[in-house]
């Protein structure tokens, strides 16, 4: 969707706060929120893509101004209400009105040891062979998507070169909306001059990971 989250290349955001203290968390509530997200027993039809999409749907002013983990809170609260596991009133008061049924028990502390070494995989086996090979010239689709997508606006309708193939991966555009489609995933390299009218150096390049349906032969 054409949301405020799609920030690549937008102008006017100014200087980066490079002097930030190097710590895992700046506030105790940030650590709690991060921990909750790892510990929660979530409905089985949630996914990382649905989470990202729900974060994209935050009010644009909130998206740019509220602290990062506060946005996670807002996103989880919205996902809970949407899935019927909590109400706005319960989330406002912190007090349960109705119990939830049908969820797995929450992760126990002793399960963290194994869980921290186990990362989800997103590659899938599919029958269809990849349409493009390393070295092929491709052009990205020129229009945006109505829902969730991982083709940033700055890279729409641009010519690039296939740099690598990664087999098939879960397609976020499908998964975020309850589907399960997987497609070949590629690394596509774009010359800076192809992307930006004010590119600084002709040798610079931006590499993106893009799914097959984002691409056509260029």
């Amino acid at each position: 969707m054409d949301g405020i989250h799609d920030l690549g290349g937008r102008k006017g955001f100014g200087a980066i706060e490079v002097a930030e203290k190097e710590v895992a968390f700046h506030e105790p509530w940030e650590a709690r929120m991060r921990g909750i997200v790892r510990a929660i027993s979530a409905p089985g039809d949630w996914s990382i893509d649905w989470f990202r999409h729900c974060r994209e749907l935050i009010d644009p002013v909130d998206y740019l101004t509220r602290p990062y983990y506060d946005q996670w809170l807002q996103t989880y609260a919205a996902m809970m209400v949407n899935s019927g596991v909590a109400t706005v009133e319960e989330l406002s008061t912190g007090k349960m009105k109705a119990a939830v049924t049908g969820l797995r028990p929450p992760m126990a502390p002793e399960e963290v040891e194994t869980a921290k070494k186990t990362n989800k995989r997103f590659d899938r086996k599919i029958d269809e062979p990849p349409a493009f090979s390393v070295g092929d010239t491709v052009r990205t689709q020129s229009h945006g998507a109505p829902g969730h997508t991982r083709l940033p606006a700055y890279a729409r309708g641009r010519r690039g070169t296939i740099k690598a193939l990664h087999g098939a991966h879960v397609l976020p555009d499908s998964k975020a909306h309850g589907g399960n489609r997987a497609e070949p995933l590629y690394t596509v390299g774009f010359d800076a001059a192809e992307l930006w009218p004010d590119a600084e150096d002709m040798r610079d390049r931006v590499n993106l990971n893009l799914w097959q349906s984002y691409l056509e032969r260029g």
Partner: protein
Amino acid sequence: MTEHDSKTVQKIHEELHSHLPSEPALRVKALESLLIEKNMVDPKTVDAWIDVYTEEIGPKCGGQIVARAWLDPHFKDRLLQDGSAAIAELGFDGAHLTVVENTVDTHNLIVCTLCSCYPTTVLGMPPNWYKMAAYRSRAVRDPRGVLAEFGVDLGDNVAVRVWDSTAELRYLVLPQRPAGTEDWPEDRLARLVTRNAMIGTERDLTGRMKETG
């Protein structure tokens, strides 16, 4: 069953905006209390995850990977070929990790313009600036300006490769090994490597050699 409908969630966001407690700390407290009461979260598990991210998983993990790559050329080859498999040899798990190497004429920079994807399994929690609009908007369009703000002067002969993390592949930059560290042991080399060097917002680690006793 979850309806994955954008308009519905947008409306819920609006409603939450005007009803949740006023401060983030209070909002998180209300959420955690509710999740405990609904048996969706064990607070001791939350504590355990915070310990993991505060004490165990952080830039020192990435530093160990880089130090090994500097010392063992065969490991380095495997690391650049298949990052996930190579770091598993050192006991780290990073599904879909790709390692990109800085050289005399190439500099790599990692960003996620669409959200905040970061190589968490080897670098821990990302800095705030990595997740904020200024870095995310500028890293792909003005990488040399961004690097200058971090104090990196690339000179005339270096091309920039920006990696926008649009999928579940995660990137780690393999920085250049400073001259004069030839006889350093692995643990000292690992301490030389900074978080920013592995994101790509630092390039030359020579200046840190004195600090790394």
